């Protein structure tokens, strides 16, 4: 059996390892689109703030890890696929034969379509190559404009601020973290950032990037209210797009990502997909969604590989969840935090101490949660949601005081 995995992020690497565990003899080829050993994008902020060196971002630390497992790790960029012939064509012309192909090519940052966006010194924060450029340009005292205060924007803020630059954040939505925080949480985050000397502009669009004579390499970021922000470095975090172009003509069904069934199989039988590139089953809605997070990439990689091995593994769906540290303020969100029709909710807000907890219930179980300033036992929110634990009389107690959630879990599962 010849397994080929295109994409060497967490989804691809976990899939390769799972394949090897299940089939000691199969031929396994892992193709990475970037020159480095397989690494983790989510470790990039810690590289930028000087916490780790580049090696610290590598998914596996042993230099011989892939060799030792008999996983052939090669560099290349997929150009096209012919499923019927079982052939993957790489840029440059090489053909890689496969019996089963896993697409784990992830996504890439999108660029706002405005004039001047291709000027030098404007970068996404997505790859190690991006990180090197950002490190070069974000010197102490320099002006940095971050476009986008979503999940990725908020995570990299700390790294950008810690490099000593003056940071301004421009967000199109009316609040920070519009897709993982409600208005209460978003306002709390904003106040926190502003106290850390970060300028936060919401409800503002970037309309262009011009040259600025203030300094060599300086730019003027033009906003829709006419204001111009001087910037030595512009970092873009306005969203991502799946890397699926090479699948054109392959017959693989694509929506926001590659649509896969609960065995991570695409509409073409010998092609599977996992991670940020896959639109897989969503635990909360029962529908299909792209959940571009690390835990989902890892789950997807494992389930896809089991099915590629011919073992039938059905995925119960990923729960969307995030935890992030925004210049020191820790926030998390799980599942249907906006609640559901006919559901109930409870919230505790402590503005002075920057603490917030909101729980959402459907009938007798938890379906979503938001937290700010919570670092103890956070995972239990995932557990309670995903096991649909019947809360019994603990629901009443949680409606009165959401902070008793860990007690509720221990009481409902251990006593």
């Amino acid at each position, binding site marked *: 059996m010849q397994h080929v995995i295109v994409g060497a992020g*967490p989804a691809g690497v*976990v899939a390769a390892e799972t394949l090897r565990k299940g089939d000691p003899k199969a031929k396994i080829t892992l193709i990475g689109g970037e020159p480095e050993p397989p690494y*983790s994008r*989510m*470790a990039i*902020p*810690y590289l930028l703030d000087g*916490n*780790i060196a580049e090696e*610290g*971002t*590598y*998914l*596996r*630390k042993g230099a011989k890890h892939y060799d030792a497992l008999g996983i052939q790790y090669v560099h290349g960029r997929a150009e096209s696929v012919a499923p019927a012939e079982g052939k993957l064509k790489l840029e440059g012309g090489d053909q890689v034969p496969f019996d089963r192909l896993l697409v784990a090519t992830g996504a890439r940052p999108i660029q706002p379509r405005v004039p001047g966006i291709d000027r030098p010194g404007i970068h996404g924060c997505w790859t190690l190559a991006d990180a090197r450029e950002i490190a070069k340009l974000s010197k102490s005292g320099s002006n940095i404009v971050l476009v986008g205060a979503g999940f990725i924007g908020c995570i990299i803020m700390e790294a950008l601020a810690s490099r000593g630059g003056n940071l301004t954040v421009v967000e199109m939505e009316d609040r920070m973290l519009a897709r993982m925080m409600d208005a209460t949480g978003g306002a709390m985050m904003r106040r926190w950032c502003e106290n850390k000397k970060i300028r936060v502009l919401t409800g503002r669009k970037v309309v262009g990037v011009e040259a600025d004579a203030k300094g060599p390499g300086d730019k003027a970021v033009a906003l829709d209210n006419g204001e111009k922000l001087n910037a030595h470095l512009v970092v873009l975090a306005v969203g991502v797009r799946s890397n699926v172009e090479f699948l054109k003509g392959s017959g693989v069904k694509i929506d926001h990502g590659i649509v896969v069934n609960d065995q991570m199989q695409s509409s073409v039988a010998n092609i599977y997909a996992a991670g940020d590139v896959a639109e897989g089953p969503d*635990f909360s809605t029962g529908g299909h969604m792209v959940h571009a997070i*690390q*835990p989902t990439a*890892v*789950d997807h990689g*494992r*389930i896809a590989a*089991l099915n590629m*091995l011919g*073992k*039938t*593994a*059905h*995925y*119960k*769906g*990923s*729960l969307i*969840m*995030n*935890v*992030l*540290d925004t210049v020191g303020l*820790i926030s*998390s969100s*799980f599942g249907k935090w906006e609640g559901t029709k006919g559901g109930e909710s409870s919230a505790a807000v402590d503005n002075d101490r920057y603490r917030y907890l909101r729980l959402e219930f459907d009938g007798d179980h938890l379906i979503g949660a938001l937290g700010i300033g919570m*670092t*103890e*036992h*956070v*995972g*239990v*929110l*995932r*557990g309670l949601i*995903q*096991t649909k634990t019947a809360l019994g009389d603990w629901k009443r107690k949680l409606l009165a005081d959401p902070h008793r959630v*860990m*007690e509720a*879990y*221990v*009481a409902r*599962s*251990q*006593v």
Partner: protein
Amino acid sequence: MQKSLHIDPGKCTGCLQCELACSFENENVFNPAKSRIKVFRFHDIGRMVPYTCTQCDEAWCMKACPVEAITTDAATGAKVVSDALCVGCKVCTIACPFGTVNYNASTGKVMKCDLCGGDPECAKACPTQAITYVDANWTGLDRMRDWAAKTDSGARASA
């Protein structure tokens, strides 16, 4: 034979010796807030429940870690955090459905029970044998295993 922590809530008096021993062993302070084992008290039903990581096979924390900072100790089976490799991203803290991995803001790393390398201080400190360290197949961790199975986002493969 690997051993695990066996917890018998019926014997717990809520004295918190385990929390003190744990925080001292791991963080050099007598501070229950820094303990990796926690005692939950349910006064209305007169019950105390010590609670910590079961070193589960699913090891969501270990699988979710983006930088291989959590590994299995071959001797004890414990899932152990390497402070040198942990970048403090906290993804394991939301991945663990038991809520037993916590972020420690003072070190910038996560912390969880590592069975003290095979000689758990909590068990030694417990005066009533509510916490013991025994052969793994005696521990009766069934309740947690059930919970683990329910959380498993991917059904285990059938051959």
